[in-house]
């Protein structure tokens, strides 16, 4: 696993020769697992470049930041990117641009977050070449009083054949909160396959009843469901899982 820290809005250079850092850009030179942690960041622009045939699994983590982030992912021919991402920020204003630039480039974007105060996500996926694929999964637990907005836009121009687009966003509310999901798919090509689902809702009482009927307390039942929603989406390694569980532990019973 390769670790990259972004501290005070700057990418910290490392000796790792599988990544090249060029100002705000990260160029991946080898396939593999990478972890990026944003530490005390508030305003950052970062580009990720994945060359032909590389297979990158990227875990992004941000906790307690009040952050404005612009992340751009450029994928070349047959490049494969799996992003697993967890945020529990004070505030987030994030724009994600994904450019599937060449044939068979594909991205799986798994994002889980705790909505603490005010989080806004603008996710744009541009299918610029044929047979490209995007799977976007957002899972958010909205705390009481929080605002969570997702604008998700997928684009396929006419003539860009046989693309696959999927968007799935789910927000579970732990109290009164403002939540919006705007899923858009701008498709001008008939051969495209597209699916999407968006759900905003409370914790299901039937689920709580089932768990409690096995002796699990109300607080633990909520913890289990929240943990399930967040963790199962992003498949963190042991170190990251421990960090995330510590954050989730504080939510129980809200």
């Amino acid at each position, binding site marked *: 696993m390769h670790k990259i820290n972004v501290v005070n809005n700057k990418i910290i250079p490392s000796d790792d020769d599988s990544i090249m850092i060029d100002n705000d850009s990260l160029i991946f030179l080898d396939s593999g697992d990478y972890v990026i942690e944003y530490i005390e960041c508030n305003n950052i622009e970062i580009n990720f470049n994945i060359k032909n045939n590389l297979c990158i699994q990227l875990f992004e983590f941000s906790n307690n930041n009040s952050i404005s982030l612009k992340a751009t992912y450029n994928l070349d021919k047959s490049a494969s990117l799996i992003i697993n991402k967890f945020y529990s920020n004070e505030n987030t204003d994030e724009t994600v641009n994904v450019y599937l630039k060449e044939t068979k480039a594909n991205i799986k974007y798994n994002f889980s977050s705790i909505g603490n105060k005010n989080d806004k996500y603008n996710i744009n996926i541009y299918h610029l070449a044929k047979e490209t694929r995007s799977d976007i999964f957002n899972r958010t637990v909205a705390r009481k009083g929080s605002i969570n907005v997702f604008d998700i836009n997928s684009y396929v121009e006419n003539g860009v054949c046989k693309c696959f687009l999927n968007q799935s966003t789910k927000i579970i509310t732990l109290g009164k909160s403002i939540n919006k999901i705007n899923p858009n798919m701008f498709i001008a090509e008939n051969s495209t396959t597209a699916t999407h689902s968006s759900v905003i809702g409370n914790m299901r*009482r*039937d*689920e709580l*009843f*089932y*768990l*409690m*009927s*096995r*002796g*699990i*307390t*109300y607080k*633990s*039942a909520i913890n*289990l*469901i929240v*943990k*399930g*929603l*967040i*963790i*199962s*989406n992003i498949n963190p390694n042991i170190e990251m899982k421990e960090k995330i569980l510590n954050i989730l532990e504080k939510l129980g019973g809200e």
Partner: protein
Amino acid sequence: MLKIENLIVKANNKIILDKFNLIVNDGEIHVIMGPNGVGKSTLSRVIMGDYNYEVISGNIYFNNDNLLPLSTDERAKKGIFLAMQYPMEIDGVSNQDFLRTAISSINNKRIGLYDFIIKCEKGAEELSMDKDLIHRSLNVGFSGGEKKKNEVLQIKLLKPNFIILDELDSGLDIDSLKIVGENIKKYKDENPNTSILIITHHPKILEFLKPDYVHIMDKGRIYQSGNYELALEIEKFGYIDRKNILTVEDKNA
């Protein structure tokens, strides 16, 4: 063990249980039968403390403790287990995490991982369950039979002393029914003081779990009680024909 007195229960402004009475002593097996919509499943969920049902009056005692003020998890901790007709699917919550949390909650002590795995694997093997199901999301993508086996696995792990089986036989093929029936019988043989309340339409499961009492429900209460023969009679004549026979016999008498 369980004593229900004059229980009146309402849901959606409709009385579902109407002055319902039942006593189940230690070690007894009781069966409740009746057509759809007479309140059988409501009874099971009210015993377990489902917030969807409003208890208007009456009492439920379990080992002389009043159950009604207790939350669902507190009732489970007293040893009551409801095997549900439609076990919930909860996406993301792993079966393993759920089972381990449940065992730890019931026993008030965190179960060690090794101990848990051994118990789980043994239970799953006895139920001819695919071990992979332990690692999947709770009941998600499980077949009807796998869901019911997962309920019985929970019985084995949580070791309740009062088990409610709400139409456990629905959705089970004949082989799975045999496995499930034999496993519950084994549990009962190993824990003879455990009481079982079976809610069913079909007496097939009673071939494994011979009941001490069979009750027929209608309009929110028990209108007839008998033994195993009564269940066989119901299977032969059905509820409507049998009611007509009873009415004619009553008139002749």
